């Protein structure tokens, strides 16, 4: 079952300490956003980067 944060405000992020857990939770938020057709730029606290 997909585990996601209840919101995308970044509040949950502050409570998490282990950076690996943070990375997993960030990706879960991204997965949910893409599934819902949201732009990744709407995800507060997550920085998407491109090299081009």
């Amino acid at each position, binding site marked *: *079952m*997909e*585990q996601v944060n209840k919101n995308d405000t970044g509040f949950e992020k502050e409570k998490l300490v*282990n*950076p*690996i*857990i*943070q*990375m*997993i939770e*960030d*990706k*879960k938020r*991204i*997965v949910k956003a*893409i*599934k819902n*057709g949201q*732009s*990744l*730029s709407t995800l507060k606290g*997550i*920085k*998407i*980067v*491109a*090299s*081009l």
Partner: protein
Amino acid sequence: MSLPYKFYVSEDGSYNFITKENHKYLVYFSESTLPDAENNTHILYSLGFSRDGEHSCKPFSVKYDSGIRFTIMFIVNDFFNKNDHKTLIYFCFDDDGYSRHRSIVFNQWCKDLNVSIEKHNSVIPYKGQFVYSSLIIVRDNPLKSLILKSFNTYLEEIINK
């Protein structure tokens, strides 16, 4: 060898391409930080990609297309070549029961990287599931030992919880 599909970078920083079978792929790198015991903060990039808005898959539902692998690894190679930090992590989630399979496939794809890398695979127990991860670091990264030590410390913290 296939040519990569034509891709574009959208406003949100994701890479997008459409295959000949009309599947829409989205590739992204999200930036994360990894502190170490010496108060350094390392930057890691989490790689992900989706097909038609999904990260999960149904076996044998999509015809094999070598252009997909070639395009995604072309993007990853470009990212490695242009980015100074050169540390990537790829997580495979088990929502569909195929995380291990995806991890094996991704490990095969990593043979297409044109930089000398080390790959450190882990299985992370998290919320009742196993997350398969591959940490990819350029072999000559001068901070490699610090990054690996820090990553393994945090990994042990999760496993021993």
